[in-house]
């Protein structure tokens, strides 16, 4: 392998790597604005200048290929001077906007100004002003003043989102970003530019001014918008999700996520229609009752039916743990009619991230056994059997079956007993006889298996009534750490809900069952013992980046 020396350290590199890439691979970070590991090289910011022996002038490390025997200095006097000069140059027209800029706290320019800036400017003239608050697209506001013309956003739209939508216009110090005349910056991936924009020029309309970044806790999670399962971070303040951002996973989503996933997969967690506590139908109306009563009534009513008269519907929206617990519970009752609904939107996919399957865990649900195949009825078969009066009791976990089509809605109202787990009110819960409040993906531990067969973990970011941030080892912001019960921010809304696996475990004790799951991982370990593909796994081995399952055969368990 060829070698180069960076700051006296010998490092190996692959032919074709640039100096910045080789250094980065060896853990040496060379400051940069415009360079991004998955975008083409533009070389316009000049912050990555380094001194290289035998070269007459400093060279930008992002576009200089590493060569055998090269000697690079990233901290020499000359390099530092040049870097500080470049910083001063970039700051000439940059406004002192940090107090009102959403990027503050995670801003590259801010960080580099501290680390590499001189703290003073020779420039005494008036700064050039440009347009502020420009609506570039439906989800993005642009602030011309703040832009440092790195062109990352332009390259992102061209190369990653594959839509040539942004461009520079004008010249010199008047340069600014805009869309082509009459067009809007509206591809499905626009919000990724707010992450890679090194300054606060591009802001997320949905998150704008909601919170300062240092006030939130962030928890590693997985997007539930489709079967890609993009790795995400969930940002929470006062027990409320304020935004999602993508988390790097080169095997799944690289650095990106789609706008739909980012904006629309967390709003239901704090929606008005969250189900808070257990409900039972009394004299035609759903009435809130204690957990004990609801569990007792549910157990008693299930006992009234023969196993052939009961059917279970699982869900690809929820975790392997929940589905596995459902299967175990159904089997303990002798029920064989188990299935779940696929939610695919024909044609709604691309070769970037978005998948047709709009659930995060179809493979996981199948592997957990929520599809009895030829042994039991499919969802369609169940509906037919309900119509014919053969199936009298239906148990639905976290899926809005009644909203699938009008006929299903009519059929479901024929049931003698409908038990539903759900996080939010929907058509199915309004038809239900017993409703259990399910925790959302942001409130529990668990695993999803994405379309590639990669099992990935989710973690609780929002606390429910039974949880405590500190005791349950959840991520905490400074407010969470030092708050007392008298502080209002500690009194953020908490729902009385539980993960579905827990509800099944509790219910089974009322039916004389012996399953004793204490935590989600207990369910998962049980799953690894029963399903070959999961063999030998536990939460630690899955880790932050997931593990590819060895799936021999899909479907039918």
């Amino acid at each position, binding site marked *: 392998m060829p070698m180069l020396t960076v700051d006296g350290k010998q490092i190996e590199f692959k032919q074709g790597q640039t100096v910045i890439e080789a250094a980065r691979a060896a853990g040496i970070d060379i400051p940069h604005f415009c360079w991004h590991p998955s975008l083409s090289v533009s070389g316009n910011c000049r912050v990555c200048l380094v001194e290289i022996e035998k070269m007459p002038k400093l060279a930008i490390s992002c576009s200089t290929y590493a060569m055998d025997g090269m000697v690079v200095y990233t901290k020499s006097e000359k390099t530092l001077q040049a870097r500080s000069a470049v910083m001063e140059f970039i700051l000439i027209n940059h406004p002192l906007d940090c107090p*009102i800029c959403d990027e503050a706290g995670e801003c590259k320019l801010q960080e580099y100004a501290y680390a590499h800036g001189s703290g003073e400017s020779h420039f005494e003239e008036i700064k050039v002003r440009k347009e502020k608050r420009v609506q570039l697209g439906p989800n993005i506001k642009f602030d011309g003043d703040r832009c440092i013309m790195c062109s990352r956003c332009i390259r992102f739209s061209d190369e990653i989102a594959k839509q040539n939508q942004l461009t520079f216009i004008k010249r010199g110090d008047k340069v600014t970003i805009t869309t082509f005349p009459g067009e809007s910056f509206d591809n499905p991936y626009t919000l990724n530019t707010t992450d890679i924009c090194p300054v606060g020029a591009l802001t997320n309309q949905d998150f*704008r001014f909601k919170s300062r970044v240092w*006030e939130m806790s962030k928890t590693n999670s997985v997007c539930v918008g489709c079967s890609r399962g993009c790795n995400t971070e969930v940002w929470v303040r006062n027990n409320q999700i304020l935004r999602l951002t993508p988390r790097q996973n080169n095997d799944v989503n690289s650095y990106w996520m789609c706008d739909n996933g980012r904006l629309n997969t967390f709003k239901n967690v704090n929606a008005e229609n969250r189900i808070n506590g257990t409900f039972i139908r009394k004299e035609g109306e759903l009435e809130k009752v204690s957990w004990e009563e609801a569990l007792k009534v549910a157990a008693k009513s299930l006992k009234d039916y023969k196993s052939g008269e009961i059917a279970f519907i699982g869900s690809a929206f929820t975790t392997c743990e929940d589905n596995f617990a459902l299967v175990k519970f159904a089997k303990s009752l002798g029920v064989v009619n188990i299935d779940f609904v696929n939610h695919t939107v024909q044609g709604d996919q691309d070769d970037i991230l978005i998948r047709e399957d709009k659930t995060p865990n179809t493979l996981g649900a199948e592997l957990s056994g929520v599809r009895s195949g030829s042994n039991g009825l499919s969802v369609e078969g169940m509906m037919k059997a309900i119509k014919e009066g053969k199936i009298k009791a239906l148990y639905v976990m976290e899926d809005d079956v009644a909203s699938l089509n009008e006929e299903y809605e009519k059929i479901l109202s024929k049931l003698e007993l409908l038990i539903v787990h759900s996080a939010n009110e929907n058509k199915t819960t309004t038809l239900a006889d017993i409703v259990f409040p399910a925790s959302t993906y942001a409130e529990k531990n668990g695993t999803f298996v994405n379309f590639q067969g990669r099992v990935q973990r989710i973690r609780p970011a929002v606390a429910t009534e039974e949880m405590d941030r500190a005791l349950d080892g959840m991520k905490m912001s400074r407010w969470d750490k030092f708050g007392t019960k008298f502080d209002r921010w500690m009194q953020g809304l908490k729902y009385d809900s539980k993960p579905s696996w827990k509800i099944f475990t509790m219910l089974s004790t009322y039916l004389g069952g012996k399953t004793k799951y204490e935590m989600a991982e207990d369910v998962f370990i049980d799953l690894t013992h029963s399903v070959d593909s999961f063999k030998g796994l536990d939460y630690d081995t899955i880790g932050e980046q997931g593990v590819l399952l060895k799936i021999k055969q899909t479907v039918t368990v």
Partner: protein
Amino acid sequence: MPVQKRKEDLNILEKLYIPEIVKGMALTLKNMFRPNVTMQYPEVRFEPPSSYRGRPVLVQEKNGTERCVACGLCSRVCPALAIEVQASETELEKERYPQKFEINMLRCIFCGFCEEVCPEEAIVMSKDYELVFKNRKDAIFGKDKLLVQVDNLKDRLEFLRKFK
């Protein structure tokens, strides 16, 4: 502190007591004619100097809006976690304003850090030292109690310009 002497260590004058009593009486007499510094609070109120750190307040501009841009720096720096700010967007040039601004006066320790860190001179320490509440809830001051006309804060703002 004067060293306490044992009886056997006293000199002859001290042993006589009389000169010592006269000394003490002289001190009392002297103080009897010094100006009176005790204030008959609450009939008479103390008017603190501009360096005084009373409760923190928000500066309200002449046109009625607050100076604060809801940057949250005061909230971040506050060692007692007394300040809660929720920003929101405004049409004004400053772009953001505090939709909610609350100081929990039970938490505040009057350190003045919030005033020091504020980039807008929007939060200043006032001369107000009278803080009474009957329950925890009343101790949380919202914008209604925090906003003070800029004219009434001239002293402090001048002090800050000079010494900050």
